[in-house]
């Protein structure tokens, strides 16, 4: 049994169904990439895993989430709260707004150790300073006493990571941890996360829209489109032989060295909003291979080698 096992998870908000039967599995020491454009449901998956859907008016409408064998979807709130910050932690998108602007950053990290590990004030403080140092924040003791507005974006994100680690979690969900940061900082943060996974044996769900990040860091990847899984596979295979047309387009979109100017590719059309999903395969309006069957039947998720794919024409070999 995998450490984190998500099976046919569906999420509803109001009368809409933004996530439809998402499945993936993850073991400790592994990094799973969750890829998709904005609107594909990536953040909702993160919220769903953390049990925070009620905060945005959503709820789990089907499927299961198992963490280390125990089912999360029917967990009562106090029990879920005991898990959050302790066994599973969230790193969210925008470090600029993730921290409480009126509290010193050190205190915000301390809070987790005090609450979940029962540490005293002084012990929590030295633990936090340790963590900050491990995350390569210089002069951690000084930084501990600073306010968020006195720090750069990259530093803030490291603090957020420290906050996530303070409770000694086994699962980390990182929702686009580098999107709001400078390109130069992005690589550093990703590397920090990778090192953490390897050194501490954590399980990491890395949510991103950037296939480049996936290539750099992930072991497995799940490609989401419009609330459904389009394709899932180990990273090496998915880049070598992308089976879903959407995946192929995503990979082609990655800018390459030596690319001729003006040849940067995009995917025609835009991601549909939740109420406007197409019938059958939700990608077919933007797909070069679309045929009549694509509109009539939802393509089932079929296993192919080490991965799964949801496309009527996925048997076609990739063309580079």
């Amino acid at each position, binding site marked *: 049994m995998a450490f984190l096992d998500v099976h046919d998870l569906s999420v509803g908000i109001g009368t809409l169904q933004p996530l439809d039967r998402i499945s993936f599995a993850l073991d400790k020491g592994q990094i799973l990439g969750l890829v998709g454009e904005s609107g594909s449901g990536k953040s909702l998956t993160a919220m769903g895993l953390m049990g*925070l859907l009620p905060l945005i008016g959503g709820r789990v409408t089907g499927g299961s989430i198992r963490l280390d064998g125990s089912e999360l979807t029917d967990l009562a709130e106090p029990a879920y709260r005991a*898990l959050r*910050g302790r066994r599973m932690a969230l790193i*969210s998108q925008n470090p600029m707004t993730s921290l409480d602007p009126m509290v010193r950053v050190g205190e915000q990290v301390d*809070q987790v150790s005090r609450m979940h590990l029962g540490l005293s004030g002084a012990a929590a403080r030295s633990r936090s300073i340790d963590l900050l140092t491990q995350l390569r924040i210089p002069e951690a003791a000084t930084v501990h006493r600073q306010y968020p507005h006195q720090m750069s974006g990259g530093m803030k994100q490291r603090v957020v990571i420290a*906050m996530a680690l303070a*409770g000694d979690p086994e699962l980390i969900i990182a929702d686009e941890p580098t999107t709001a940061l400078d390109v130069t900082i992005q690589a550093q943060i990703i590397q920090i996360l990778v090192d953490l996974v390897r050194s501490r044996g954590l399980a990491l769900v890395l949510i991103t829209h950037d296939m480049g990040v996936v290539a750099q860091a992930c072991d497995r990847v799940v490609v989401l489109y419009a609330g459904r899984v389009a394709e899932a596979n180990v990273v090496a295979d998915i880049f070598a032989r992308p089976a879903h047309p959407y995946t192929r387009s995503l990979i082609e979109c990655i800018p390459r060295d030596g690319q001729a100017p003006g040849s940067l590719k995009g995917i025609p059309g835009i991601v549909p909003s939740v109420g406007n999903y197409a019938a059958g395969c939700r990608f077919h309006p933007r797909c070069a291979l679309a045929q009549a069957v694509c509109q009539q039947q939802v393509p089932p998720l079929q296993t192919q080698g080490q991965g799964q794919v949801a496309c009527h024409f996925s048997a076609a070999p990739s063309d580079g």
Partner: protein
Amino acid sequence: MLVYLIRRLLLLLPVFLAVSMVVFMIIHLVPGDPIDNMVQIGASPQQRAILVARYGLDQPLLVQYGVWLRNMLGGDMGDAIVMRQPVIDLIAENLPHSLRLGGLAFLFSTIVGITTGALAAVYKDSWIDRSVMTLILLGSTLPSFWLGLLLILLFAVQLEWFPVSGARTWTALVLPVLTIGLHGVALVSRVTRAAMLDVGRRDFVLMLHAKGLSHRRIQLQHVLRHALLPVATILSLRIGWIVGGAVTIEFVFARPGLGSLLITSLAQRDYPVVQGCLLMLAMAVMLGTLLGDLVQAAMDPRIREQLR
């Protein structure tokens, strides 16, 4: 912080000068000779001459203003026409009553307002929330002096729990404070609730949930602190309403105080008293606003660094 305080005080200076100029001009804008408006009916030419010398009434307006201002700040506010006392004495008699009323009303509004607003936000959409919203509605639309009169009717006339008017006992403070306070509670409560709901939608609150804190703890220990900032802002902007409310309610309850003094002297056309009261009340508003700004700066580390 000290630098901020000094800068704010400096900003206050031109405001004070402008307001004092307006108050000063009242006597000169009223129809009739300024001397007639400062002197008792039937005063002798010698008494008039003394006044002219004292206030420099034969000098250009700007000089008169200077003399007046210097006198005022030195404690010489002129003599009341009707009550035949130095104005400063009248003000000294009445000021403590107003301070007591205003201070208590402010404390009452702030404490009760923040409490109800916070409860309404934490238990949003429950019966607590709905009751608080009704209270807010009533407090903001009912004219305060009517409310005061109703309270007098019910609690003083019918039930005889409190005195109808005056300031002889401390119980006489209850109804007036309640009257001014209810309006204030409505304001503070509304802002607190709205601010807490607004802050509750921010990203860092999501992270607090992700860390495993409970909803109530997040609201009361984290969100409330943020919400207090807009509350302090609103309070410091509207500190004037306490002064305005006190003026009205003192009159309604026939309590001694700057407000009653102002209204009666207006009706009697006792201009020196009017000027003295207006100046004091205006200063109260300015000081209140300043205090409000200082409290905000103390609460939010970001404001201290703005220095604007």
